[in-house]
């Protein structure tokens, strides 16, 4: 591990130098295996946050209060420590620029991580405004409160520099003073407002806690999006609903 970046009070990005890394695609994950002194092993999957263009691998880990692995990754590990990884894994929830767009990303909480890899990849692979214009992207991101928005500043910078990228936040629990954005869980009306119409055939990636993913994907299909274009990754239990 070569660096640790605090993203929010509950999430840290672990930057890893992985010898012989074969390269990965945006959206893939790695399995991290921890072995205790008595030989007990625990393994968890973490999405890769860095784009394929990066030589270093970044994982953003949310500390789950009842987690077995995440508190260790989020609190105990230090720069210089070694982790056992397997990956990259998964060929389904992936997106590369040749897959085309428009690209619609819907995330909740730490579900942003693989979506961020896609946005970073899009930004790195499409170097010009014209190229990005041909492959527009929208991110609808649900967080509980403003200080829990992962990659907040980087998302703002990316959107600022790229007229073809729209980043829309919804804050479900608490909003800063003067907040004019969404302040409810993602629902049908919000998706109708933010998503491209089904006729545009957006490539949709939904990642977050299971209830959010299932609500969003079912609603999008109900709105007329082709199920094959709506790809999901459920994170299972997290610290609570977003």
């Amino acid at each position, binding site marked *: 591990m070569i660096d640790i970046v605090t993203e929010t009070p509950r999430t840290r990005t672990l930057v890893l130098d992985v010898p012989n890394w074969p390269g990965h695609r945006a959206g893939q*994950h790695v*399995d991290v295996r921890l072995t205790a002194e008595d030989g007990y092993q625990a*393994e968890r*999957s973490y999405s890769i946050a860095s784009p394929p263009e990066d030589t270093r691998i970044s994982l953003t880990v949310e500390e789950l209060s009842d987690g077995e692995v995440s508190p260790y990754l989020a609190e105990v590990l230090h720069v210089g420590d070694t982790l056992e990884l*397997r*990956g990259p*894994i*998964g*060929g*389904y*929830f992936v997106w590369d620029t040749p897959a085309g767009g428009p690209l619609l990303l819907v995330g909740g909480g730490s579900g942003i991580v693989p979506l961020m890899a896609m946005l970073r990849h899009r930004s790195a692979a499409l170097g010009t405004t014209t190229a990005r214009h041909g492959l527009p992207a929208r991110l609808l991101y649900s967080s509980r409160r403003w200080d829990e928005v992962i990659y907040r500043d980087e998302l703002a910078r990316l959107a600022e520099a790229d007229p073809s990228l729209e980043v829309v936040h919804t804050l479900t629990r608490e909003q800063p003073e003067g907040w004019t954005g969404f302040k409810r869980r993602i629902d049908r009306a919000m998706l109708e407002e933010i998503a491209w119409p089904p006729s545009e055939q957006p490539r949709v990636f939904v990642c977050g806690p*299971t*209830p959010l993913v299932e609500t969003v994907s079912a609603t999008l299909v109900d709105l007329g999006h082709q199920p094959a274009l709506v*790809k*999901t*990754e*459920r*994170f*299972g*239990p997290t610290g609570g609903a977003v």
Partner: protein
Amino acid sequence: MKRASNESHESIVAGERYSDARRVDGNAAAGILSEIFVPDLTAARAKCAGCGVTRTIGTLIVYAHGMGMVVRCPGCDRVMMRLARTPTHVWLDSTGATSIVMSRDAT
């Protein structure tokens, strides 16, 4: 959760009823499947022995629990695969998937 009646024994074999919170995607099984299959299996397609529908494995529903996983059909809830890892072995029961098709490019 509603289950087809002929599936009840599967739930018992699987150990216990799983809470909805443990429900994740086929992607979550990619790691353990990679110990058994050379190509990435989440992009492969499997035919459900229950309803006969063929789906991409990444879209199947996975209940992750302890050292194992139960992979179910999102359409009919039939158990399609069960995967477990012991200290010495990896175990796959795929009787609920009558066929698995993968692109030769993926190998």
